[in-house]
């Protein structure tokens, strides 16, 4: 059995005074004080309402937007009845909207159609992105190597009545995020496109295919 030690002297430190003060505040006030502090903080950062989406910058036809994966420019838009060369096979009541783009993979590994899916979209009701192909040698579903620009045709199937020659089509270029697999998934893929630029251009109708 050890001898009892003399009681430690209470030192008048700032912490002990704070604790004494805190001990005197009724517990149920903490919730109200916490809420008040939270509201004050959010007010300082602009309030709780959803932030208004920033307007997406307008791009010129042929102007390049550089995202994390692709730097691309939309050069022309065509409407075809069919475009087998680009891997587009419209069904009854559909036509093909093809965008001619110049694109460079600015990431560090090859990427293809799945990355394009997260980058380009068109404001045409009922449009389905279906395929893409190189313009120079008609390779379908090409893999774009880092740092090597290419001209591609990117094709959507659109309902017959959605577009006509001469109409304007709005194309949205988005910036996706690279996701890396964790735990039970592996590999990397692009996801969560954030609209970052928009370009509007006229659609040229080409009867037959070209």
């Amino acid at each position, binding site marked *: 059995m050890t001898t009892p030690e003399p009681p430690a002297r209470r030192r008048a430190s700032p912490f002990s005074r704070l604790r004494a003060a805190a001990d005197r505040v009724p517990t149920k006030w903490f919730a109200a004080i916490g809420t008040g502090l939270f509201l004050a903080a959010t007010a300082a950062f602009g309030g709780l309402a959803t932030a208004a989406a920033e307007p997406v910058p307008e791009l010129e036809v042929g102007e390049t937007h550089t995202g994390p994966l692709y730097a691309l420019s939309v050069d022309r838009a065509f409407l075809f009845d069919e475009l087998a060369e680009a891997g587009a096979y419209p069904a009854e009541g559909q036509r093909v909207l093809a965008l001619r783009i110049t694109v460079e993979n600015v990431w560090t590994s090859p990427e293809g159609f799945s990355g394009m899916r997260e980058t380009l979209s068109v404001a045409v009701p009922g449009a389905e992105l279906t395929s893409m192909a190189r313009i120079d*040698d008609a390779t379908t579903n090409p893999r774009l*190597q880092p740092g090597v620009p290419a001209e591609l045709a990117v094709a959507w199937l659109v309902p017959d009545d959605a577009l006509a020659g001469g109409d304007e089509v709005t194309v949205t270029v988005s910036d996706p995020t690279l996701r890396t697999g964790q735990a039970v998934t592996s590999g990397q893929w692009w996801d969560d496109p954030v609209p970052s630029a928009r370009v509007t251009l006229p659609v040229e109708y080409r009867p037959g295919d070209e």
Partner: protein
Amino acid sequence: MKRWLSWTLGVVFVVGAWLVALATPPEDAREAPFTVTASVGEEATGRDIVATVEGLRRADTVTDGAWSAEGNWLVVDLSISSRVSPRTLAHATLQIGDRTFAATERADGSLYQQGLTAGVPRSGSIAFELPADLDAETAVLRLATLSDVRLDSVVEAAVPLSEIERSGEAELRPREWARP
């Protein structure tokens, strides 16, 4: 315990922990591929792949029969077979710095994604399309039979890019059974 002793032990343990952390392999080391290093002209054998890099060429234009393409091309001439079972050359990449390039799928006559036969080598070429402004001196070529190379054999060869003369045009070797 004496105060100086406990302090010294504390410091020793902290330093020891730091050394252990330094020696710890990275997260993905568990699943790293099994690398077999090869030099040009030398046959390299992995678990189910046997590959010989026979030539390295650079050119501004690559041709394969009727197809041709301009760019900054690296052509790798190789003979390749599997060792035990039917396989495919599913993984053919070139790593330059932090960028990875995949063999081109644009040339139908290349060996990329072609079948490999156990014990019977096939000869031909694969080609890599590289950025026009590339100024790297070396690269690493990797060949494997599965596109996901985790825990699989990978044949690796160093490519001395800056030492390979660049010509105007290079034709892919015809794809055929290798002549011994």
